[in-house]
């Protein structure tokens, strides 16, 4: 796909300011092209959007954080329902209020249909306590909803674009 001069200029500005490396730039270019094709929007218009502009001008953020957040935002626009499902999963996991020694997470892209559980304990007693907390959490509604989301049966999963 050929890039219009305003689109090239907009990405160039961003790449220079944030010193974007080749791999990040390739991801951004692919996602921007695909958003533009799908939504019939110009790439420079996408980059000038409110959220991206706010990240760029936020004085509290360093260069690396700005790049990370802009990439997240472009990915969110490229994969809106995936991002929505990931958000919904994170919300369910947060609702469990698990201690920091237990981490529940889903793989990037949600492929595999599984939640990953990680523990860290410094004693047998602590491990038993954490296991009991996890067993208690496993019976709760947010866990049921999290697995329903992974299985495509959650209320948040909508097909049809």
């Amino acid at each position, binding site marked *: *796909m050929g890039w219009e001069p305003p689109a090239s200029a907009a990405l160039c500005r961003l790449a220079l300011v944030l010193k974007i490396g080749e791999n990040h730039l390739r991801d951004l270019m692919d996602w921007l092209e*695909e*958003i533009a*094709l*799908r939504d019939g929007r110009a790439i420079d218009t996408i980059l000038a959007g409110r959220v991206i502009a706010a990240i760029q001008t936020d004085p509290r953020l360093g260069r690396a954080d700005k790049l990370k957040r802009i990439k997240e935002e472009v990915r969110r626009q490229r*994969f*809106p*329902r*995936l991002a929505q*499902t990931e958000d919904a999963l994170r919300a369910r996991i947060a609702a469990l209020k698990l201690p920091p020694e237990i981490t529940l997470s889903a793989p*990037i*892209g*949600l*492929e*595999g*249909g*599984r939640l990953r559980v990680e523990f860290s304990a410094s004693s047998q007693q602590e491990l038993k306590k954490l296991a009991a907390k996890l067993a208690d959490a496993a019976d709760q509604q947010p866990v049921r909803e999290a697995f329903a*989301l*992974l*299985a*495509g*049966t*959650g209320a948040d*999963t909508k*097909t*049809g*674009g």
Partner: protein
Amino acid sequence: MYCFHPEEIVVERASVASPMFQRLRQRLPEVPFKILDDGVAANGRRRPGEASFGAAKKRLFVAAHKGEFLKKCPGSDGQVCCNYFVINFASNCTMDCSYCYLQEYLSGNPALTVFSNTGDLLREADELLSKHRRFFFRIGTGEITDSLALDPYIGFSREIVPFFAEQPNTLLELKTKSDCVDELLSLDPKDRVVVAWSMNPERVIDLHEQGTATLHERLRAAWRCQEAGYRLGFHFDPMIEYPGWERDYQDMLEQLFAAVDWRRIAWLSLGVVRITPDLKRIMRERFPRSSLITGEQVLCPDGKLRYFQPLRVAMYRTMFGWIRRAAPTVKVYLCMESREVWQQVFGYAPSCEKELGLQLAPAH
């Protein structure tokens, strides 16, 4: 359906006397042909990137196949396999679907070629099938070509159907997006041949399946095959997701079950569009406006991009529900999907590929 008309037929000297070339000359008398010495023709076929993949479809080579004809379907790494075997009687296809994996798979050798040594093919199949009479084989001819699109010109089905009709341990599947079934209708399949269609709603056919038969033409052809005694197969693969896909796919299923008797259906399969990163690059070049690359596809462990799992599982479950309402006991399987996806869609996963293969065997 688009009528295939090659600009030229190129035949190896050793294949000039073959029945296949003789039929081509008889059925396409107006097409110019060129005879080349075997090595010259082989080099011509292997010219990589020959102008373009699309251009390679306009010249038809006739050559003897040197290697094995029959192979195990490679499936996809880590995915549930249906224990399928493939016979490659030709390479490349007259049609030009924008998502076709042959664009990548045959990029180094895209010449549209039919293999003239059908006798060797049948001998090889006979040896394998006779040696393993206790094993049940599902064999298809539509892996690197369409099983029937060239049939009006090469008459291959007249050679292969009578042979497989006599095999007690085999089902032959002829998989197509065409309506080229005339050659089949006067043959007796003896319940050993399944004619199968890759199915999509008309909107998807119009946008992404250039040169193929319309939905109506495919259904009409399926009905004619059913009436001639063939068992039928339908592959809802690749399923494409877009705003309104549910209405279109449900409508297509209603048309299908109105056109054919579901009790004559040997199997149905479901699979979403699968694109490797390299194929995506080719699609961007050949079909730059295609919406297929803008779906919410993520990279899966087997290196293919698919709709993210919750989305495609929801699609499969929706389709499966509609199928079950119309055809309560028809066999349905997933193509190139993981055990997790099988579990989420059907509530079970086959324990091994043989189990799935046997499930698809005819009931005795």
